[in-house]
């Protein structure tokens, strides 16, 4: 049996899904989309049930990706039952989606969640009355406490096993609309389409001139991909692809034209249908909802009084961000350190084993300096990413993230971006990988892409570390902070400029609407925080490790062959020599170019690379930077800092961009854009500095 879980965002859908499927989850993307697809298998009695968690959506029209996915799934895969989750505290708008679902799929069970929250706001819902008003079963649940979830599923199975489709209520449309719908129904009733879809829905969509109507789709399971990858977690993509078979023109064209002449265009119909549905809801509402006026303000009101306040809102946001940053990037340092130590220890053990087995020197070096050193450098960042995602899930689930978007929207407007981009960009200061991953909350794909592509321009913690070491060596004292600030200013100006520029590149003509729900605050369940954290971390590791391994080996080979020669004669050194023509105009010598090339894998290694190149042993970053002062003028160092700050942060961020955008083209574009921009900026700074007489 196939069951689909449908509902508005923030109704607790994922809580129910996580409770029912536990660890039997498949997470991937919907085919061709960058929206998460979650499904799971449940065993109940004799039944094997495939539960699909459809993305949270407000409507079943075809505008946002989430809506399209939900609608296509119900239309094309025809789940046996739809479990519709409803937020009792916000039942009017939630029922709007339920009415749309009822027009499309007759077997629906409503799960009424957040009754406790509704009661705190003075709302009481009579479940039995609601069930009779809609003529579908309604189950009360308290998802956060795990109550009623099993009953919800049992009811869904019962409905799925019914011999005949139940008859849910029909929305009563006003007479002038009803006549037109019936006229269209009369034209459609004999066609093959009427056998496939509910007649009423077909007529409504035909009046709206919905393109999907009349399209025949074939479901082709992408077997090759599925069999190659039967991992229990983190499926690379959807198991199902749709193929367009044929497009038929449905009858009713003349009628539609006649209506248009009367002023009933498709937009007019859409509006009228939505209006009628809301009117219908307000008609039936008094039958099951009663409310009393509470004098006491709710928790959400109290919290919003502070969190969204013009005076306290920003300081509170700073504190929240500081806690997230401290927790993810500072407090996690010992764990990261432990990971690198464990890697070093493992490398030692392995090397000793190799020595004992008389393995040749180059194998030992490959294991210790190549594989373990390179992979360890990246693995040390995994705790950061995991902790960051735990915070992120918590903030998102609790309702704070929407508030941060509300407060940050003003700044994002300047760049033509959505308020939700704010958190992603701010996260970039910690690490660009979770920053890019955090773009998932953006609904508009173009907004997402722009935010993803500009994120690398924001210097992350490791880069800031290297930068401050270099700044401290070249610009001692208070000059250093001015230099550092100027660098951050350059980064911010370029982020803004790039956002505006990329809007033209991705041809975003219409700014996406900022009409965002501010959900009631609630405390997320532990499971809802931990499951996504685990999935994100695991999928990052799974995707990144091969790339990182290969890159580590390549770097090792380039920098250690031919063996026994000084650094400048190794392949890496020669490469630096060839690349000097790019670096030359910026005043870079071959060493800087080598460090830049090797910075691709992970930028925090740049200092140690420079250390080796300048002949300074040990990893003391200060001494390395000091050694550089002898070889470079301050202007060259500044140019280096600008280029260093702006070019691709690391291999992991490139892989993440590829995974999140799903497009090799845009990933390459992003890499090229970063490189060109950073070197162009470097050139401007270097020659501008020379012209102004700096040295």
């Amino acid at each position, binding site marked *: 049996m196939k069951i689909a879980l449908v509902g508005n965002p923030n109704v607790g859908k994922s809580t129910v899904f996580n409770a029912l499927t536990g660890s039997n989850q498949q997470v991937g993307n919907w085919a061709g989309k960058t929206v998460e697809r979650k499904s799971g298998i449940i065993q109940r009695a004799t039944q094997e049930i495939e539960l699909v968690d459809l993305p949270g959506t407000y409507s079943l029209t075809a505008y946002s990706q989430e809506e399209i996915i939900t609608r296509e799934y119900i239309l094309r895969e025809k789940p046996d039952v739809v479990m519709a989750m409803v937020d009792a505290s916000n039942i009017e708008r939630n029922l709007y989606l339920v009415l749309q679902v009822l027009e499309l799929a007759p077997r629906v069970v409503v799960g009424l969640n957040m009754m406790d929250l509704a009661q705190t706001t003075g709302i009481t819902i009579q479940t039995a009355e609601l069930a009779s008003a809609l003529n579908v079963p309604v189950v009360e649940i308290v998802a956060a406490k795990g109550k009623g979830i099993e009953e919800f599923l049992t009811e869904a199975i019962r409905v799925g096993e019914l011999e005949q489709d139940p008859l849910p209520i029909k929305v009563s449309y006003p007479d002038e609309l009803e006549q037109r719908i019936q006229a269209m129904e009369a034209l459609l009733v004999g066609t093959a389409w009427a056998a496939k879809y509910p007649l009423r829905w077909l007529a409504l969509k035909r009046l709206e001139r919905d393109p999907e109507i009349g399209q025949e789709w074939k479901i082709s399971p992408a077997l090759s991909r599925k069999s190659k990858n039967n991992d229990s977690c983190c499926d690379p993509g959807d198991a199902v692809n749709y193929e367009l078979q044929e497009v038929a023109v449905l009858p009713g064209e003349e009628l539609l034209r006649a209506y248009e002449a009367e002023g009933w265009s498709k937009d007019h119909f859409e509006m009228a249908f939505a209006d009628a549905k809301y009117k219908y809801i307000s008609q039936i509402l008094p039958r099951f909802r009663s409310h009393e006026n509470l004098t006491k303000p709710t928790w*959400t009101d109290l919290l919003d009084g502070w969190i969204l306040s013009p005076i306290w809102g920003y300081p509170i946001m700073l504190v929240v961000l500081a806690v997230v940053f401290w927790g993810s990037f500072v407090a996690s340092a010992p764990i990261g350190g432990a990971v690198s130590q464990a890697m070093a220890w493992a490398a030692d053990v392995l090397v000793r084993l190799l020595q004992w087995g008389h393995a040749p020197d180059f194998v030992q070096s490959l294991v210790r300096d190549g594989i373990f050193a390179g992979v360890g450098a990246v693995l040390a960042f995994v705790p950061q990413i995991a902790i960051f995602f735990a915070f992120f899930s918590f903030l998102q689930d609790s309702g704070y993230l929407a508030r941060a978007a509300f*407060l940050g929207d003003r700044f994002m407007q300047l760049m033509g971006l959505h308020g939700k981009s704010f958190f992603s960009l701010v996260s970039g200061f910690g690490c660009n990988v979770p920053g890019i991953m955090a773009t998932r909350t953006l609904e508009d794909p173009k907004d997402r892409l722009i935010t993803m592509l500009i994120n690398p321009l924001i210097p992350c913690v490791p880069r800031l570390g290297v930068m401050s070491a270099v700044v401290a060596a070249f610009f001692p004292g208070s000059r250093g902070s001015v230099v550092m600030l100027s660098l951050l200013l350059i980064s911010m100006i370029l982020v803004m400029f790039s956002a505006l520029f990329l809007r033209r590149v991705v041809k975003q003509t219409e700014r996406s609407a900022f009409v965002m729900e*501010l959900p009631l605050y609630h405390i997320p369940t532990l499971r809802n925080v931990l499951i996504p954290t685990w999935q994100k971390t695991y999928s990052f590791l799974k995707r990144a490790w091969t790339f990182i391994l290969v890159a580590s080996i390549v770097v090792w080979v380039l920098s250690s062959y031919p063996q026994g020669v000084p650094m400048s004669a190794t392949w890496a050194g020669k490469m630096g020599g060839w690349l000097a023509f790019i670096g030359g105009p910026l005043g870079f010598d071959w060493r800087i170019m080598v460090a830049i090339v090797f910075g691709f894998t992970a930028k925090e290694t740049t200092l140690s690379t420079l250390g080796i190149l300048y002949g300074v042993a040990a990893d003391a970053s200060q001494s390395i930077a000091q050694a550089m002062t002898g070889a470079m003028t301050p202007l060259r160092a500044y140019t280096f800092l600008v280029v260093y700050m702006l070019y691709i942060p690391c291999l992991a961020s490139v892989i993440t961009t590829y995974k999140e955008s799903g497009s090799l083209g845009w990933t390459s574009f992003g890499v090229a854009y970063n490189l060109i921009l950073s070197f162009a900026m470097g050139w401007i700074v270097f020659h501008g500095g020379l012209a102004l007489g700096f040295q």
Partner: protein
Amino acid sequence: MERFLGDLKPGERACVEHIKGGGALRRRMMDMGIVPGVELEVVRCAPWGGPLQVRLKGYYLAMRRGECAKIIVTGSHQEPIEHLLASR
């Protein structure tokens, strides 16, 4: 005189009369429950011309001023009314 949602001060309520324009924005507003006749209350505004927090049908919505300027409202009043909104 036409009044827009963006003209309301925090704490003021008004009913939607008409939504200007069309396309995705209007559809989005419809999906969120902004249809003619619905009562809206401006709760607060973010500083420096940021978005507005709006209450309708018992929940909160954030909308930019540009979007609020597309919603024409009537009959703004401040006294509490017998409606669910008053309770929250």
